[in-house]
């Protein structure tokens, strides 16, 4: 059995993500997961076994804070260093339309492996647009509420109290999305090829055309604006 779709270097490939996008994506993936497991040690009310991995609860708290700062830096680098890409990404999300809604309605079937006829998608399909809205928003709330919880004494008490449920709700929403997102971006046979887009930067040209027809046509196909 195959885990991730095999990387094929000998077929035509097209660029999907530049170096900075890929670097910061894996940067926030690692730091997010570190924050998640150290945070869950508390969320699950004294999950001693989980904390033990980080050398107890003090160690877990330290790792949580170091990873949090690292993640904040990674996110800032991505937004500032890759400003044009971020704008293009937001514009793509704002193209949310009929084809995206059809995608999302058919998605449960595609997710389970049934063959469905999906209308042409832009760079990010309906599901990825949803993910691009929910997960980064939740991460921003995690960061904001997290720093408030870190140094509560300089904030109004009412805000600190609000930060607790916000931190947990954002954590759950982001983690729920990341579970499915991480799976779709790797082990899922249909969309797994996208892993190579995030890892090496390119995806198979036929896959790009098949999965993101609108994007492919506009960037590399007939409608490409002469680059």
């Amino acid at each position, binding site marked *: *059995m*195959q885990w991730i*779709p*095999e990387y094929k270097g000998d077929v035509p490939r097209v660029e999907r993500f530049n170096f900075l996008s890929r670097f910061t994506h894996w940067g926030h993936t690692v730091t997010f997961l570190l924050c998640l497991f150290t945070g869950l040690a*508390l*969320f699950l*009310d*004294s999950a001693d076994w989980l904390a033990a991995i980080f050398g107890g*609860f*003090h160690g877990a*708290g330290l790792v949580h804070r170091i990873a949090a700062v690292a993640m904040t830096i990674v996110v800032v680098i991505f937004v500032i260093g890759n400003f044009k890409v971020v704008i293009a990404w937001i514009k793509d999300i704002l193209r949310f339309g009929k084809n995206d809604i059809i995608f999302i309605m058919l998605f449960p079937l595609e*997710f*389970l*492996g*049934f*063959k*469905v*006829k999906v209308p042409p998608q832009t760079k990010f399909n309906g599901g990825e647009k949803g993910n691009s809205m929910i997960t980064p928003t939740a991460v921003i709330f995690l960061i904001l509420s997290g720093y408030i*919880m870190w140094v*509560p*004494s300089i904030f109004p*008490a*009412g805000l*600190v*109290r*609000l930060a*607790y*449920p916000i931190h*947990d*709700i954002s954590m*759950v*929403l982001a*983690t*729920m*999305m990341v*579970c*499915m997102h991480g*799976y779709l971006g790797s*082990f*899922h*046979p*249909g*969309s*797994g*090829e996208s892993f190579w887009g995030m890892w090496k930067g390119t995806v*198979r040209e036929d*896959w790009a055309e*098949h*999965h993101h027809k609108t994007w492919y046509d506009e960037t590399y196909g007939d409608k490409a604006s002469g680059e």
Partner: protein
Amino acid sequence: MAKMTNLYDVSKCTACRGCQVACKDWNQLPAVIEPFKGNYQTHEDTNGDTFTIVKFIEGEDPVDGVYWNFIKYQCMHCSDPACMSVCPQGAYSKTSWGATYHDPEKCIGCQYCTYACPFEIPKYRAREDKITKCTLCVDRVEEGLTPACARTCPTGALKFGERDELLQIAEERAKFLRANGFPRATIYGKVELGGLNKLYVLTDTPDKFDLPLDPKVPGQITFWQNWVQPYFGWLIPIALGGSAISFVTTRILANKNGDHTEGGHE
């Protein structure tokens, strides 16, 4: 076991602050010197090295004119403490006789308890990254002694004993005060938050003593503890389970249809 606690009678207090000093002494708490604020109160609030303070409250009543009240202030040892329910480390416990005890060994300094407490009593001690608060002298009481504050009180304003008995004394004292020039004299701690393990006899309404009339655990905290913590997290295993199911069904369906799972040819 019968509930044991302090009864503090405001009408007998001379604000000598002997209790404050005795507490520092017994618990070996270093002095915390705060700048002079224009009144007799030594500390704005309890802090990491000060478990109890005597508050000096000046105010003006539209009817009675100027008043100047003293009150000893510390942990109220609630019967169902919010600090205990939010603590992710189980650092809090209730003794059989009603003290809310905080174990510094288990504490990781997250400070959830500070913000969950209706009185914001647990305080952060930065140098140790831990929370501290009044222990009701658990260590003394379990050895048959009275708490340091009550033992030291020269006027009998602080009395340690069984809560039921103290409550009776308090009722009588409040009745006496009401008949003798303090018509609003009342008891605090009898019904508040389901009954505190601390009793006060006040010469006036609680708000004149900086005490909340109707102390409550903040709404954000109950929402977090009663809804988010127990139920919301289930979305994560559901997402994981869905992915695991998809992992299997995608491969079964691909095998049945005879194509290789090499990446998305429908």
